[in-house]
């Protein structure tokens, strides 16, 4: 069999207990439920053992990087939402940090803390989707329903704050799109009160479960050296014992002012990745708690940068300059000085980076996203070679890929 775009991939003869047999080539996906989207993997099998795995990507490629080059800096924010659809606020943040770095503008503290709050809620919601879908892959149906129940609460908070459940575009260049609405503290407090008990609930369903342990323990082991060599980041790297977290190593958006731990494990298998993610949810709750206390109730949520950040409604009605700036921002945009900037954040899946190059025009010369799913997926063949075919499902699940992020 030689499919388009794949290396020579033929059947080979292998020795088995019952004599020589031919290997089988199995096409997994792109419509397989366990590939979490449209990922296709070609597996060469000897019985149930994987001899070779070749991922085939691009089914969800939408050319976001090319489209960004044809939009002004503010317009491109809406595209970033649609890359990693479980982490739209994180994508907004990475993009905005890069543009802000390019422009050399500072964001008010109130907006920084609120950004942290939103992004940490997003991390919890992303981990919940991961936990639910991964549990379904492993045959634990009920966890999915519980996880989505709590995720719904987070999405309701997003809808309340930003007016949208998923593609919020809430984080903008220079601050936030809107002032946080009255009563947001109570809404988030209510969620914080409920959530720790709910995480205990998931753990009581899964952590001690013999089937869960049997499917995950000792499966898909990736040592720390290999993980670094394959550029893996995020929970996959931390489950191998390396406490590398962009929030701690290169703090952004005032993360250095927050107290939290970076959970690590040393087993480096699928079960360790599960434990790390559950522990991260609890850490995120701690950060959200601190962010509520830190966020002042009054103050600007957008920096004062005329010509870059749109002026408030009030100003536009009283000042002529504000009206002119408003018109110019939304027609021709603003032009950062020529240069390049790279900003990265710790997304639920690892380091999400944004590299922007400006040539002094109102549209980016180049806008590249370092998506963690794409780079982590690269290690999949190494993880699954020599394992059973059922372990492939566990490995794809615990790498936690989002195909929108892989293909962009």
């Amino acid at each position, binding site marked *: 069999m030689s499919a*388009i*775009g*794949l*290396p020579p991939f033929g059947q080979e003869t292998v020795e088995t207990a019952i004599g020589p047999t031919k290997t089988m080539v199995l096409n997994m996906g792109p419509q397989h439920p366990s590939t979490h989207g449209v990922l296709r993997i070609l597996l060469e099998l000897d019985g149930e053992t994987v001899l070779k795995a070749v991922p085939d*990507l*691009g089914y969800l*490629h939408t*050319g976001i*990087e*090319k*489209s960004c*080059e*044809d939009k002004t800096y503010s317009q491109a924010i809406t595209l970033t939402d649609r890359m990693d659809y479980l982490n739209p606020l994180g994508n907004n943040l990475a993009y905005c940090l890069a543009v802000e*770095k*390019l422009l*050399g503008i500072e964001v008010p503290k109130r907006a920084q803390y609120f950004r942290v709050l939103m992004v940490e809620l997003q991390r919890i919601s992303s981990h919940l989707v991961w936990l639910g879908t991964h549990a379904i892959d492993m045959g634990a149906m009920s966890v999915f329903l519980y996880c989505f129940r709590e995720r719904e609460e987070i999405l309701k908070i997003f809808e309340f704050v930003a007016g949208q459940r998923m593609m919020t575009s809430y984080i903008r260049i220079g601050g936030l799109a809107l002032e946080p609405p009255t009563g947001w503290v109570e809404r988030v407090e209510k969620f914080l009160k409920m959530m720790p008990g709910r995480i205990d609930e998931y753990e009581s369903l899964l952590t001690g479960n013999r089937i869960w342990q049997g499917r995950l323990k000792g499966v898909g082991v990736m040592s720390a050296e290999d993980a*670094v*060599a*394959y*550029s*893996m*980041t995020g929970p996959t790297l931390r489950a191998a014992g*390396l406490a*590398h977290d962009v929030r701690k*190593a*290169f703090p952004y958006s005032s993360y250095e002012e927050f107290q939290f731990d970076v959970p690590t494990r040393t087993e480096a298998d699928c079960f360790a990745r599960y434990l790390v993610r559950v522990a991260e949810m609890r850490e995120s709750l701690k950060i959200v708690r601190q962010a509520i206390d830190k966020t002042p109730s009054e103050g600007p949520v957008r920096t004062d940068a005329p010509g870059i950040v749109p002026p408030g409604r009030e100003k536009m009605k009283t000042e002529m300059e504000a009206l002119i700036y408003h018109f110019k921002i939304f027609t021709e945009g603003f032009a950062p000085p020529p*240069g*390049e*900037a*790279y900003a*990265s954040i710790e997304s639920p899946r690892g*380091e999400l*980076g944004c*590299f922007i*190059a400006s*040539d002094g025009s109102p549209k980016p*010369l*180049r806008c*590249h996203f*370092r998506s963690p799913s*794409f*780079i982590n*997926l*690269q290690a999949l063949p190494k993880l699954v070679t020599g394992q059973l075919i059922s372990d492939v499902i566990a490995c794809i699940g615990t790498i936690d890929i989002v195909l929108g992020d892989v*293909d*962009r």
Partner: protein
Amino acid sequence: MTDSGGQPTNAVVARLRAWSTNAIEEVIEYRGDTTIVVPRKVLRDVAGQCRDIEELRFNLLTDATCIDRYPLEPRFELNYQLVSIPNKKKLRIRVKLQGSDPVIDSLVPVWPGANWLEREIFDMFGIQFTGHPDLRRILLPDDWEGYPLRKDFPVEGYRDIPAIATRYTRSRP
């Protein structure tokens, strides 16, 4: 902001210059990022040194991407983002390539993680990586014509809008 050949501004640059005097063409410090511009011939050696020298230890290649500055020459700029996990440092390596000869040494022997990043650059910009184990298109179909992230490739693409396409492409720079 630019320092070419003069005073070494930071420890990483000084250490690399101590290793080889022609390792760095230019140092750019911009918005807190350090970028070293490296001649094409020594890229793989410099990358290896960045990873191995005890004081540097840039063990994680986080990102690699390309910029197309068409119609300027040298047209392509490859940017590699390195992170040192033990030292908590960042470094960007840049290599400039002429549009007529977009060939560069692959960094897969130094970081296996460069594999898909380089395939993506090949797919989108048509840069050839010598020594890459598996240089195929990654996101686009195998029979795709052209390299979409090049500046002379129209945003609308060539396909699916037959007659109108030429009109649009002619008006674009």
